[in-house]
């Protein structure tokens, strides 16, 4: 199971916003689409950052409602961690847990292919039962083989 499969299931549409747009516009987009985060693009249409619900609430706490008029670039998370379409779902879930993040833009050669959330990844794991046939088990079996187990 790879990221490409998940993008295939959820559709290729990626909602983005220019870095210069006001935060109010991003809030509107998140609310209308029911998304938890949006990818921010710079003037060359490459990924400049990601703006999440967490960024908005934390900025509200620090600056109050005035932040709605500021550009998205002022409160986004710049240079976010990204993944590629051939990324392994389990590995990426563990990476997201480690960094305490919930969204990963899918980027290859500066081209944005999509955005996956922790929810997307967990759903794919549940649907495929991947937790029940974990990669470490298969690795363990290979290790046992190479460590002199019988050919049977």
């Amino acid at each position, binding site marked *: 199971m790879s990221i490409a499969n998940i993008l295939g299931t959820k559709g290729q549409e990626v909602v983005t916003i220019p870095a210069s747009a006001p935060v*109010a516009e991003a*809030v*509107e987009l*998140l*609310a209308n689409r029911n998304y*938890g985060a949006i990818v921010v693009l710079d003037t060359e249409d490459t990924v400049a950052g990601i703006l999440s*619900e*967490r960024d*908005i*609430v*934390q900025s*509200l*706490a*620090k600056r*109050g*409602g005035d932040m*709605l008029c500021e550009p998205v670039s002022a409160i986004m998370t710049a240079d976010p961690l990204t993944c590629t379409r051939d990324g392994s779902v*389990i590995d990426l*879930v*563990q990476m997201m*847990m480690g960094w*305490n993040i919930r969204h990963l833009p899918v980027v290859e050669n500066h081209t944005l292919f999509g955005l996956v959330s*922790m*929810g997307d990844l*967990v*759903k794919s794991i*549940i649907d495929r039962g991947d*937790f029940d046939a*974990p990669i*470490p*088990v298969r690795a*363990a*079996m290979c*290790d*046992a083989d190479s*460590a002199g*187990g019988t050919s049977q």
Partner: protein
Amino acid sequence: MNVAKILETKGNNTVTIAITALVSDAIELLNDKNIGAVVVVDDKGRAAGILSERDIVRRLRSFAGQLMSQSVSTIMTRDPVTCHREDTVDEVMEMMTSRHFRHMPVVEDGQLVGVISIGDVVKTKIAVTEHEAAALREYIAS
């Protein structure tokens, strides 16, 4: 593996806010603790609702500048779906994923005893899976 085990691992430090508090108080709390939701409790210690980042971001437009001075009871999600200590990790993971929420209050005899997030659940699930893999590895090697 069940919900009680998750609570044991993460510690019983449930972050709550009184139903009479203001949205500005909740925003400050979420920011201070770096968490995504807080359980709203009534004066009897019952979970009256849950207030998430999503609830706040969704209301930012409609309330314009007035959101901060609203009571948390105005924008919280009322009567949230709850779980119990004996529910299994698989049950709550399935429930949270299919119904698209990231936090669940844990309730016992009407009283709030904790809150678990999808992150807590997935972390536990991965730990269990790795433990089982290690046990199997040992079995194969022996």
